C-alpha cells in the first residue's frame, strides 16, 4: 500500500515535470504568458509528488513495511529511530528520491519568488531547464532506481538493517542532506545560465538573479563537506578526517569550481568581463555534481562510500554527456554575443587577483579531478591498475592551497583597475608585517616545516587585513555619526555592505581551517601499544592507563569497549572508551571500530581499540594526539555565519525604497566611507 502510494508520488512527479516541460515549451514558443503561468504551476505538482513519495518511504521505514525491497535492504526492526529516518538516504534509490525532493523544493522556491515575472523569457527558460532536470531524476525512479520496488518472493519478518558504518553516528543524519542541498542547489544557477544563453541575454541579469541561490547552495555544500570530514574522523577510526577518497573528492571538486564562480562573478558584475568563463564555471559545477553522483552511486569505484552497485551508471553518464554538450554547444553558438570589449589594465589589481584566484581554483579542481578519475581511465583504456592517493594529492594541492591563501590575504585590499606602490604599502604594509612576525614567532617558538610556517604566516596576514578593513569601516561609520559607540556602529557598517563584510567573515573561517589543517597534518603524533590490564603507556605529556574491558550486546551488534584513563602532566582528563562493534547480521560480520575522542581547544586525544583482547589478554590500543582539529569544525561554522551575513536580505534598503514607510523614523543614513576602500565590492 505504502509502496503503491510512493510509486504514485513518483509517477505524479514525473508526469508533472514532463507536462511542465511541454507546457513551458509551448508557452515560450507562442509567447503566451498565460500558458507559461500554467507551466509554472507544474513545479508545485512535482513538489507534491516528491513529498508524497518521500513521505511514503519514511512511513514504510518507520512501520517496518518489508514488502518494499528498499526497506528490507536498509532497515531492521531493531534499528534506532534516527537511523530509520536516515535510511531514506542510506542507499542509491533513496538518495535519488531525496535528490528529487530537494530539487523540487528549490524549483518551487524559485518560481514562487519570481512569480510576478513568470513570463519573462529568462525566467521561463530557467523553469523549463529545471523541470527537465527534475524529469530526469523522476524518470530514474520510475525505471532503474525505483525506490518502491516490491520484495520478490516471501516477505521477510525482518530486514538487513543499514550498512553498519551508517548507523554509528548522529552526523549520518545531517551530512548527506546538507551535501544534497548543496549539490542540487547548483541546478538553479545552471538553469539560469542555460536560459541566458538560449535567450541571448548573456549580460549580468542571470548572475544577479541567482546570486543568493548560488551562495546558499555553496554554504550547504561547504557544510556537507565539513560534516563529512567530521563524520569520517569520529566514526572511521583511522585518525584522519580527509583521505582523498574518490567520494570525498566527488563532493569537493564542484565546491572548488563553485567557489571560483562566486569570486569571478564579481568581475563580471563590476566590469562586464569573463562572461564565457562564468558560464563555463557554473555549467562545469553542475556537470561535476552529476559526475560525482555517477562516481558515488554507480559502483564504479571501490571505496568506503560506494555502498551500492547498479546499472544506473549508463543513465548518469548519458545525462552528464547531454548537460556538457548543451553547455559547450550553447556557449559556442552564442560566441559572438559573449565577447566583451573590456580590458584588465594591470595584473596588480582586484581583477588581476580574481583572475589568479580563478586560475588556482581551476588548477585545484583539475588536480583533484585528474587524480580521482585517472586510475579509472587507465584501467579502462590500458587494463592496468594503479593508485593515486594521499601522497599525490598532498604534494600537488598544498602549494596551490598556500598560493590561494596568499591571494586571499592580498586581494581584498587591492583596488580595481590598477594599484600603485603607495596604495599597496598603505593597505598591506601592516598586515604583511603581522604575517612575517607571526612566521618568525612560530619558528622561534619551535614550529617546524616550511609549509606549516608559511600557512601560519599567511593566515595571520589575511586576518590582519580583514581586521584592518573592519576597523576602517567602523571608523567611517562613527565619523559620520559620532554619537554611536562601536557596538552599534559595527552592525550598521556590516549592514551597509553585507557581501563585503560577510565575505570577510567567510575568509576568517577559511584561515581558521587552513591553520588547523597545517597543524594537524604536520604535528600529529600517533602510536600503537599492546597493553595488558593495568598497564600504563605514555605519548608526549600524556599517560594512558588501560583499566579493563566491557562488553555488551544489543540486538544489532556486540560492542567491546576498552576503558582507558587519560592523564596529562599528572592531571586526570577522564576515562575514555574506544570500542569495537561487531555486526553479526552484516555481510561478512563486519567489525567497526568506534574511536573515543577527547576534544580540546589545543589538541584532540584520539583513542582507538585496534584489536580486542588476544589470548595473552593484551589489547592493541591506538593513541593519537592531533593539534587544533576542533578548529576545522569551528572554521566551518564561521564560514556558514559569514555566508548568512552575506545573503541576509537587506531590509533597510527595501524600506528606504518605500516612501510611505514610517515617517517618524529618520531615514537610515547611507554608510559613508573613509576612502574608496570601504566602498569596495565584496571579496566573494
Amino acid at each position, binding site marked *: 500500500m505504502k509502496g503503491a502510494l510512493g510509486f504514485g508520488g513518483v509517477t505524479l512527479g514525473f508526469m508533472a515535470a514532463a507536462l511542465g516541460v511541454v507546457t513551458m515549451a509551448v508557452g515560450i514558443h507562442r509567447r503566451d504568458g498565460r500558458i507559461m503561468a500554467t507551466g509554472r504551476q507544474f513545479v508545485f505538482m512535482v513538489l507534491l509528488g516528491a513529498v508524497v513519495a518521500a513521505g511514503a518511504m519514511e512511513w514504510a521505514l518507520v512501520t517496518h513495511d518489508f514488502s518494499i525491497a528498499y526497506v528490507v535492504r536498509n532497515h531492521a526492526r531493531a534499528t534506532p529511530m534516527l537511523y530509520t529516518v536516515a535510511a531514506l538516504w542510506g542507499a542509491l534509490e533513496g538518495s535519488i528520491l531525496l535528490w528529487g525532493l530537494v530539487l523540487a523544493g528549490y524549483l518551487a522556491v524559485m518560481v514562487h519568488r519570481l512569480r510576478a515575472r513568470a513570463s519573462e523569457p529568462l525566467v521561463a527558460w530557467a523553469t523549463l531547464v529545471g523541470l527537465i532536470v527534475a524529469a530526469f531524476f523522476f524518470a530514474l525512479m520510475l525505471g532503474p532506481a525505483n525506490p518502491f520496488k516490491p520484495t520478490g518472493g516471501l516477505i521477510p519478518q525482518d530486514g538487513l538493517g543499514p550498512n553498519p558504518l551508517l548507523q554509528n553516528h548522529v552526523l549520518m543524519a545531517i551530512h548527506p542532506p546538507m551535501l544534497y542541498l548543496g549539490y542540487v542547489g547548483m541546478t538553479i544557477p545552471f538553469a539560469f545560465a542555460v536560459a541566458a544563453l538560449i535567450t541571448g541575454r548573456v549580460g549580468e541579469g542571470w548572475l544577479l538573479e541567482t546570486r543568493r541561490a548560488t551562495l546558499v547552495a555553496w554554504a550547504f555544500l561547504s557544510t556537507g563537506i565539513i560534516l563529512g570530514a567530521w563524520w569520517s574522523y569520529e566514526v572511521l577510526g583511522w585518525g584522519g578526517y580527509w583521505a582523498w577518497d574518490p567520494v570525498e573528492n566527488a563532493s569537493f571538486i564542484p565546491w572548488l569550481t563553485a567557489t571560483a564562480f562566486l569570486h569571478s562573478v564579481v568581475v563580471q558584475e563590476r566590469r562586464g568581463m569573463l562572461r564565457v568563463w562564468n558560464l563555463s564555471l557554473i555549467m562545469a559545477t553542475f556537470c561535476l555534481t552529476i559526475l560525482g553522483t555517477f562516481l558515488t552511486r554507480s559502483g564504479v569505484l571501490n571505496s568506503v562510500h560506494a555502498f551500492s552497485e547498479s546499472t544506473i551508471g549508463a543513465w548518469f553518464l548519458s545525462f552528464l554527456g547531454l548537460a556538457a554538450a548543451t553547455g559547450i554547444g550553447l556557449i559556442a553558438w552564442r560566441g559572438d554575443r559573449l565577447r566583451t570589449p573590456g580590458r584588465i589594465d594591470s595584473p596588480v589589481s582586484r581583477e588581476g587577483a580574481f583572475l589568479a584566484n580563478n586560475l588556482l581554483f581551476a588548477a585545484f579542481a583539475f588536480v583533484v579531478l585528474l587524480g580521482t578519475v585517472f586510475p579509472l581511465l587507465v584501467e579502462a583504456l590500458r587494463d592496468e591498475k594503479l593508485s593515486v592517493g594521499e601522497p599525490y594529492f598532498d604534494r600537488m594541492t598544498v602549494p596551490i592551497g598556500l598560493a590561494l591563501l596568499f591571494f586571499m590575504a592580498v586581494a581584498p585590499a587591492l583596488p580595481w583597475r590598477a594599484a600603485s606602490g603607495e596604495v599597496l604599502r598603505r593597505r598591506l604594509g601592516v598586515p604583511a608585517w603581522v604575517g612575517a612576525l607571526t612566521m618568525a614567532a612560530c619558528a622561534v617558538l619551535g614550529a617546524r616545516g616550511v609549509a606549516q610556517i608559511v600557512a601560519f*604566516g599567511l593566515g595571520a596576514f589575511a586576518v590582519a587585513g580583514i581586521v584592518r578593513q573592519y576597523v576602517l569601516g567602523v571608523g567611517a561609520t562613527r565619523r559620520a555619526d559620532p554619537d554611536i559607540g562601536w557596538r552599534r556602529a559595527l552592525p550598521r557598517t556590516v549592514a551597509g555592505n553585507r557581501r563585503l563584510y560577510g565575505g570577510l567573515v567567510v575568509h576568517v573561517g577559511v584561515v581558521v581551517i587552513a591553520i588547523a589543517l597545517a597543524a594537524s597534518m604536520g604535528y600529529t603524533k600517533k602510536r600503537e601499544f599492546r597493553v595488558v590490564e593495568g598497564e600504563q603507556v605514555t605519548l608526549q605529556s600524556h599517560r594512558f592507563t588501560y583499566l579493563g574491558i566491557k562488553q555488551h550486546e544489543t540486538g544489532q551488534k556486540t560492542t567491546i569497549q576498552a576503558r582507558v584513563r587519560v592523564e596529562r602532566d599528572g592531571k586526570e582528563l577522564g576515562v575514555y572508551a574506544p570500542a569495537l562493534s561487531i555486526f553479526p547480521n552484516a555481510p561478512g560480520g563486519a567489525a567497526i571500530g568506534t574511536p573515543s575522542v577527547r576534544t580540546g581547544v589545543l589538541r584532540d586525544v584520539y583513542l582507538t581499540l585496534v584489536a580486542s583482547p588476544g589470548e595473552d589478554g593484551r589489547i592493541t590500543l591506538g593513541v593519537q594526539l592531533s593539534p587544533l582539529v576542533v578548529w576545522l569544525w569551528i572554521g566551518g561554522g564561521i564560514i556558514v555565519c559569514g555566508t548568512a551575513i552575506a545573503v541576509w536580505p537587506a531590509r533597510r534598503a527595501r524600506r528606504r525604497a518605500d516612501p510611505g514607510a514610517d515617517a517618524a523614523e529618520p531615514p537610515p543614513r547611507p554608510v559613508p566611507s573613509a576612502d574608496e576602500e570601504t566602498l569596495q565590492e565584496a571579496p566573494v
Partner: protein
Amino acid sequence: MIRRIVPPLALAAVVVVALVIGGAGRDRGPRSPAAKTQAIAEDLRCPVCQGLSVADSHSPTAESMREDIRRRVDAGESAASIKAHYVGSYGEWVLLRPEATGVGVLVWVLPVGALLLAAGGLALAFRRWRRQPAMAATEEDRALVEAALANQRNEPA
C-alpha cells in the same frame, strides 16, 4: 628611495630567516628508522583496505607490512628497494604516489602543463590588453546617453 626599499627588504629578510629556522629542524641529521618506516608506509596502499595507506590502517595486514618495512629499514635497505619489493608482490597499484614513468607520468605532467599554459595565456592576454587603447566614449556614445537621459526626464517614473 632608501625609505622605499628598506621596509620590503626587511620584511623579506624576516620571512626568509623564519623559514630557514623552521625548515632546518626537519632534515638535520639522518632520519630515525621509525620516521623512515612511517614515510614508506604512507606511500603504500593497504592491500585489504578501502583506499587507506599502510601507515593509516589498523588492519593486521597493514600491521605486518609495517613490521616488515621496519625490519628492512633496520637492515639498511633503501626506500626505493622496499617499495620495489611491494610492487613486485602487488603490482603498481600498491603505490599511492604513482611513479613518474610510463602512463603514470601524465598525472604529474598534465596539471603542471595546464597551469603553465593557462598562466601563459593570461600573460598574452595582458600584453594584448596593454596594447589595446583604453576605451573612451565617442561623440556618438555621448549623444546616445544624452538622448536616453532626456527621454527619462520626459517620462516620469
